[in-house]
């Protein structure tokens, strides 16, 4: 609809412009005729008085081609008079004696007018074709550079920039309406700064444009908007520029606002056309952005849903079973004190102890993971000896478990800058996992070696079932538990490796799992961190 409006506007806008051009053309055609008359006067002795009307014809045609039909007609008429006045007997009067001369004069006039008509028509068509070509080229250029922009948040600024370059608007602004708020989605050139009252005014006019669904600022439908703007600003206001409401299928999504024209005046038809066409582009882009935002939100919701499910199943199983065990043991101890012999009492106490440890570990893992992922637990980096880290981890294990771990530390292991506590958490998770999932009684090997002078490598190998290819990524995901272990007696929460990965990533390191002949092998690569002081 905006386009239909604009087509009507083009004709009306064209008028004042062409009037100016015509005046110039008139002057030129008069000058040309005067010049030709002067030349012919000088050469009057050599000219055939009867044929001479033909001599003016090229001048008139040239005027028609250059300045259009009306100036050519004036030129033809003036030529007619000049010829009569200067060259036909009696000279210096408009009286014509000879009937033949009358005839040749009339023929000249008719011929001049007809040919100028044809010539000027041809010129108009050529002009129109050129204008159309220009327009198409500009639009093509604009849309080409737009389609080259891949990132959505760059398209609108780039579109605004195109408009500033191609039209003579001082600035171009795209306002995005979200509910009743107006956001500036793009404003070009970026050097434009606006005082708050002007921004407020722009928002107000945008509101008017949207409410009435009217293009504001084009000369074509001035009738529709002039009064509204006059009411808003008072009768003698500065030029407001152009406001084009942006439609999508969901309704108005915003306004494209082109600032006033550089050097004042109103926009040319081509510029208006361009602004209106690119406004349609902008509307499409905004619609697309809104769709993309909706899709992203839906995806986030879905992920949150999956996580919630995983957490729920974790809570229902991993939290409830230790709680149940504690509850049963505690009730037994309290209620039937006398009936329990010493062995059973010990067993119940041990169960409470072990299960509450398990709960504590689970809760602190959950908290650690969420703090890491929220960026609230930044590594406190200091120089760390990885051997020391592993030794500390082993020191905290039960001696019988710790004895199953063999540490091979390279002599030239570099110190790395890392958070001792966090790296210890990685090592303890890897080692405890290895102890838990390996074939009972086998040895766990922890290998510590330098890595290309830029880091340190920690490898934990155990003997047991390999990790299948598809699971090699997934086991580092939150709440993921290996298929083989999902229903097994080995307890796990699917948090340990996720925690490891979060810590290693925070240290700009890499963690991955491969399979050796005997079983899985977890590798952590940590950069030295800072250049040694």
């Amino acid at each position, binding site marked *: 609809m905006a386009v239909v409006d604009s087509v009507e506007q083009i004709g009306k806008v064209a008028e004042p412009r062409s009037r100016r051009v015509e005046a110039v053309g008139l002057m030129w055609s008069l000058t040309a005729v005067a010049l030709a008359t002067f030349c012919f006067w000088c050469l009057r002795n050599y000219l055939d008085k009867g044929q001479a009307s033909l001599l003016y014809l090229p001048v008139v045609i040239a005027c028609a081609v250059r300045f259009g039909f009306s100036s050519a007609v004036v030129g033809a008429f003036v030529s007619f008079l000049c010829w009569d006045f200067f060259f036909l007997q009696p000279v210096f009067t408009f009286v014509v004696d000879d009937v033949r001369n009358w005839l040749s004069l009339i023929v000249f006039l008719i011929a001049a007018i007809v040919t100028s008509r044809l010539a000027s028509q041809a010129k108009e068509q050529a002009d129109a074709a050129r204008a159309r070509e220009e327009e198409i080229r500009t639009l093509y250029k604009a849309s080409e550079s737009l389609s080259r922009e891949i990132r959505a948040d760059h398209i609108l600024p780039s579109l605004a920039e195109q408009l500033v370059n191609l039209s003579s608007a001082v600035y171009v602004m795209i306002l995005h309406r979200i509910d009743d708020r107006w956001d500036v989605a793009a404003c070009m050139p970026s050097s434009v700064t606006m005082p708050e009252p002007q921004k407020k005014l722009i928002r107000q006019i945008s509101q008017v444009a949207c409410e009435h669904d009217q293009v504001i600022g084009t000369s074509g439908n001035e009738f529709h908007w002039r009064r509204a703007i006059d009411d808003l600003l008072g009768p003698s206001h500065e030029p407001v520029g152009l406001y084009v409401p942006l439609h999508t299928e969901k309704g108005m999504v915003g306004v494209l606002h082109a600032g006033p024209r550089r050097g004042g005046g109103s926009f040319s038809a081509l510029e208006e056309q361009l602004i209106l066409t690119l406004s349609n582009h902008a509307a499409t882009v905004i619609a697309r952005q809104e769709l993309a935002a909706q899709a992203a939100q839906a995806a986030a919701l879905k992920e949150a849903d999956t996580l919630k499910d995983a957490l729920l199943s974790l809570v229902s199983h991993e939290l409830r079973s230790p709680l149940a065990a504690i509850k049963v043991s505690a009730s037994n101890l309290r209620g039937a004190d006398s009936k329990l012999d010493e062995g059973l009492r010990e067993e119940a106490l041990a169960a409470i*102890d072990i299960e509450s440890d398990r709960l504590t570990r689970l809760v602190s893992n959950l908290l650690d993971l969420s703090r890491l992922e929220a960026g609230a637990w930044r590594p*406190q980096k*200091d*120089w760390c000896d990885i051997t020391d880290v592993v*030794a500390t981890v082993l020191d905290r294990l039960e001696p019988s478990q710790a004895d199953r771990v063999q540490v091979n*530390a390279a002599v030239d292991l570099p*110190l790395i800058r890392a958070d*001792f506590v966090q790296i*210890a958490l990685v090592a303890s998770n890897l080692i405890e996992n290895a102890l838990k999932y390996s074939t009972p009684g086998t040895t766990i090997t922890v290998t510590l070696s330098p890595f290309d002078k830029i880091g340190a490598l920690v490898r934990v190998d155990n003997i047991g079932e390999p990790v299948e290819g598809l699971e090699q990524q997934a086991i580092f995901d939150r709440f993921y538990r290996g298929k083989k272990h999902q229903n097994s007696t080995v307890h796990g929460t699917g948090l340990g490796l996720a925690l490891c990965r979060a810590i290693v990533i925070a240290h700009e390191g890499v963690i991955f799992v491969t399979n050796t002949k005997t079983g899985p092998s977890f590798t952590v690569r940590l950069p030295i961190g800072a250049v040694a002081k």
Partner: protein
Amino acid sequence: MGLVAQGYNVIVAERGDKALERFDAHSPALVILDVMMPGDLDGLDVCREIRTRGDVPIIILSARSGESQKVAALDLGADDYLTKPFGMDEMLARVRAALRRAPAGKAQEMTVFVAGDLNVDYLRRVVTKGGEEVKLTKIEYEILGYLTRNVDRVITHRQLLSAVWGPEYSEDTQLLRVHVGHLRQKIEDLPARPKLIVTEPAVGYRFRLS
């Protein structure tokens, strides 16, 4: 609760100012202090105040995220720390160790230190392991000497660096890691699994007797 069951007499204070009041009234043998205490005076302030009044052992309680506060309290002169959550056994062990150390206090003028087959002679500045002399550099000896004089006590990086190298080196943990590594190579049975000089993650070291 666990402490009372073990026969200790416990006085509880919920806030920093109350803690100091009761400290003055009862002169306890040991203070257990939560660094995250509510009130105008936090655990660190209380720790500093108590240190000005005497040499009573202080054990700090802190959350896992409170590393910096823990270190600050230890630097202020606290003796040991416990990270929440902890077991009652662990707490009792720390309390016993702190009380055992207390009577000797500053007057502890040992001439010889013995831990298993390790023997440190402070007068002759000689260290032997299993009867054989261990050649230590001056720095290594200083580290070992400082740790063994404060046996079973957490020594922060800053304390150790200031004591051995001087206060201007108190941030240079890289230096410390390297020398402690060398020292372990010489005195530990299994340098990769140290039993004597134990690392306290992100805090410092402790020379462990048991």
